[in-house]
């Protein structure tokens, strides 16, 4: 027993909170290096971001958890679990679950840029979870670094004592030891009773082809080992544990995980729906009376249709979505049918980035070329009959005669921006039907703006415009604030006289004409010439409000067959054919993938 208590008192669980680009991944790398968890030979840059996509985008999507051994100045060796967290507004729930697995958090703030909106949101989440927060001012080697100003900002804005904040440069390895010392001395060891019934939190999972579902857990009470009968409290599923282990950072089998331990469990779990991030694992024979608080099945906010370009990929697409759903508690999908696109799925996402990531992963990891329809939000529609509907697919929008009123979701948007950009941001928010709530100075230079904005406008192209109108200086966070009645209409797009359901969208009546005109122009650019003339029309109900025409293709013929090089001619024609495969036959018209997202890509 004493051994167990000693072991538990030498565990520290922490995560890192940082804004994108503030150096989280680099700091994690340095910590792994400093503690000898990885030799420099094994060291890949930014080891924690293991997916290609994460590296390319410089963001963390999937959580990771690493066990480190650190010999502190007090002569004792501590076991540290570093739990990585995503850094984007779309993944707030995943962040909150990984925070729940920790007792402390490093708050990384860029010494030049200061606090950003997303950092702030995650700090509040951490405070809600009663985490000990250790501020770290990073990138102090930058010429533009102002560590004292940033420390002051941490105190003023968050209300944390920043006098002990470590001044660090993850890039140059400055301050790493000081950070580790603070982790050991300031973050409390995990509480938890080894003799109590098993209680553990699932904060992530992934699917392994050999082992089935691998659940990432933090043990709160009790122990878990191979053979333990376990139960997932939210789903009710029961299994016998096959293997437990920790990440060092590679998966390493251990005999047992006890209170405070962070590691993984496998139990031949084949059905991906049995495990949910945020769920509590307990002993099936000796269950804990109360699950851990905070589990929720989170609701997606943005929806779109995903269709295989090649309809024979439909089953593969379903398999891919099922696999992705496993480590993505927030991904939703259900089959839907489109007249234009055939069989596909209506999918729900946390936000635009989440949607793009899923789309890219399906195309890259599962090699299924996709058509994504323009994103939509959930509209609450009340019919004249009094019946109420929730609609996430514009093609289900009822005709005007049956419609009493429509409500659309609004979000409360917080934007932090240097004061010089306040003008452009206000203009942008107003152009997006935003309503001003509040403006506050963070310091002499930076301002927090708060607006109520329809979510539909956010999913449209708000991020891009925000970035371009502030040269990338703005940071942005939002939360759902409720539904409001709006004057909306459904816009239909007709190609060659046929309505293409997958191109329909819902728009505020005041903007309908403008948007209809621009989208016709955009589609004209995106759809290549066909063998015949193709009219493009935008219509509200029966009324056509805009029209463009794609001229017929007139010439496409190879010149010469040179010196008998038939294989080259074949290659050229095969390339042409590949190009066509990336297009979807809609009626008689071949439409490229991008066209279905055209509504997003227009500048008004």
């Amino acid at each position, binding site marked *: 027993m004493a051994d167990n208590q000693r072991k538990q008192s030498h565990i520290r669980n922490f995560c890192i909170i940082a804004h994108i680009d503030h150096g989280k991944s680099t700091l994690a790398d340095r910590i792994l290096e400093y503690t000898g968890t990885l030799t420099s030979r094994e060291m890949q840059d930014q080891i924690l971001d293991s997916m290609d996509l994460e590296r390319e985008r410089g963001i963390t999507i999937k959580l990771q958890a690493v066990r480190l051994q650190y010999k502190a100045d007090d002569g004792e060796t501590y076991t540290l679990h570093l739990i990585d967290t995503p850094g984007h507004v779309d993944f707030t729930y995943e962040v909150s679950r990984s925070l729940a697995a920790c007792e402390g958090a490093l708050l990384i703030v860029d010494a030049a840029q200061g606090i950003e909106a997303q950092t702030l949101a995650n700090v509040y989440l951490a405070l809600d979870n009663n985490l000990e927060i250790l501020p770290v001012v990073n990138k102090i080697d930058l010429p533009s670094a102002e560590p004292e100003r940033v420390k002051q900002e941490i105190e003023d804005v968050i209300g944390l004592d920043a006098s002990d904040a470590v001044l660090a440069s993850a890039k140059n390895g400055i301050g790493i030891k000081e950070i580790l010392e603070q982790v050991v001395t300031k973050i409390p060891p995990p509480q938890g009773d080894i003799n109590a019934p098993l209680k553990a939190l699932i904060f992530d999972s992934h699917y392994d082809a050999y082992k089935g579902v691998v659940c990432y857990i933090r043990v709160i009470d009790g122990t878990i080992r191979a053979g333990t009968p376990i139960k997932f409290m939210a789903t009710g599923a029961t299994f016998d544990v096959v293997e437990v282990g920790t990440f060092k950072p590679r998966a390493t089998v251990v005999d047992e995980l006890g209170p405070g331990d962070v590691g993984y469990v496998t139990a031949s779990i084949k059905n991906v729906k049995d495990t949910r991030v945020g769920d509590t694992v307990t002993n099936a024979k000796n269950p804990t009376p109360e699950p851990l608080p905070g589990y929720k099945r989170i609701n997606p906010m943005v929806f779109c249709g995903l269709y295989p370009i090649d309809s024979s990929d439909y089953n593969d697409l379903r398999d891919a979505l099922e696999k992705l759903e496993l480590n993505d508690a927030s991904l939703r999908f259900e089959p839907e049918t489109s007249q234009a696109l055939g069989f596909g799925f209506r999918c729900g996402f946390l936000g635009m980035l989440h949607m793009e990531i899923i789309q890219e992963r399906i195309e890259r990891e599962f090699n299924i070329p996709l058509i994504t329809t323009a994103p939509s939000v959930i509209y609450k529609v009340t019919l004249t009959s009094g019946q109420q509907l929730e609609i996430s697919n514009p093609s289900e929008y009822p005709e005007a005669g049956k419609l009493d009123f429509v409500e659309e979701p609004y979000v409360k948007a917080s934007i932090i921006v240097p004061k010089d950009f306040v003008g452009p941001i206000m203009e942008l928010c107003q152009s997006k039907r935003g309503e001003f709530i509040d403006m506050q100075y963070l310091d002499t230079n930076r301002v927090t703006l708060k607006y109520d904005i329809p979510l539909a406008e956010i999913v449209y192209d708000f991020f891009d415009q925000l970035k371009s109108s502030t040269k990338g200086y703005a940071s942005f966070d939002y939360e759902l604030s409720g539904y409001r009645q709006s004057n909306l209409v459904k816009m239909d797009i007709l190609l060659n006289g046929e309505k293409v359901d997958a191109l329909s969208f819902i728009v505020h009546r005041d903007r309908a004409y403008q948007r209809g005109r621009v989208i016709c122009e955009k589609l004209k650019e995106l759809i290549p*010439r066909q*063998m015949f003339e193709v009219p493009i029309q935008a219509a509200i109900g029966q009324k056509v409000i805009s029209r463009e025409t794609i001229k017929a*293709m*007139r*010439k*496409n*013929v*190879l*010149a*010469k*067959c*040179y*010196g*008998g*090089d*038939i*294989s080259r*001619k*074949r290659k050229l*024609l*095969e390339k*042409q*054919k590949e190009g*066509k495969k990336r297009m979807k036959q809609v009626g008689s018209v071949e439409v490229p993938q991008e066209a279905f997202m055209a509504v997003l890509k227009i500048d008004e």
Partner: protein
Amino acid sequence: MSIGPMVQPQGDAPPAPLHGWTPRALYIHIPFCTNKCFYCDFNSYVVEGQPVDAYLDALEREMERTVAALPPETIRKVFVGGGTPTVLTPAQMTRFLDSVARHFPVAPGAEFTMEANPGTTDPAKLEAMRAGGVNRISFGAQSFDNGLLAAIGRIHEADDVVRSIENARRAGFTNLSIDLMFGLPRQTLEQLKDSVEKALELDLPHYSLYSLKVEENTLFHRLYERGELPLPEEDVEVAMYEHLRERLGRAGYKQYEVSNFAKPGFESRHNGTYWRNEPYYGLGAGAHGYARGERHMNVKGVQAYIDAAAIGLPRKETHTVTVREAMEDFMMVGLRLLDGVREADFRRQFGGAASEDVFGEVLAKLREQGLLERFGEGEAAGYRLTEKGIPLGNEVFGAFL
């Protein structure tokens, strides 16, 4: 024509050799030019400083090895292309043509074409060519507008074309052709019309009229990628193509292929080999050949070719054509001919298989789109491009792959 063993297209059976008959056509590549044109991605090298004699030695090695591996029967069509074969000196020309005659039994009435560039054919060289058996010359004229010629990297001028044709006629050549290009950067319809008139004034029996295609690894491609190649609009290019089809037709030339026009009896017989998907020998650096159901490509570099030919057949790649692929090729290249493909030829090449059984769906779709039409009945039946299909040939050819 003797016909080799026939093949039956069968599911999992190993591919039987296609086109078992011995090639009657011979292509030889001379990869040297005086300079590299801006649009050119052919296997050619500026001749200055190149080991031309060693190359001709190597060609002889390849000829020896080729006839040993696949003894030739009477050759009815020879085509010497490049590059610019006429950059050879008269002595090199004589020696090269002698080596061809020594290794291949070229029939007395065979079509023997050599490509030439205006300004590279003096009387001595023309005499060497005539004496060596060449009886048809295809000149790369490209345009009669000196500004355009300079803009595409040609070093000759319009006058050189006229002079070269005069010289060739004086040397006894009557079967002459020139290439013209259209769709060139900044080219106008008026400029093209003017070039066509000047070409017709020469009163040649054959004209090739190609639209510019921007190929990778050319100067034009780099310019194109940078958005600095002002090509004519699609509608202008179509107008050019329509004009030259109409104008050459009016002048008594028959368009027998997408890009080729001839007086009756002067169609290029060698190129007909490719278009009918028949076998041909292919020799020289980077040359392609097709024999016994195998397509090959030779090593491309001059020295690499010389080295490879010293050891064996200088192949870079050899590829066994499957029955399916050969059928696709048959349609893809055959439909370039305006007379189209004949069902009888398809059945003969593919052991009695009917094109409609293989390509029924594609043929039906192309006919529905108005790009392809069926003609004749029974053995005489076949398919050809429609008027609408001619400028949209790639849509048709690609559909069979």
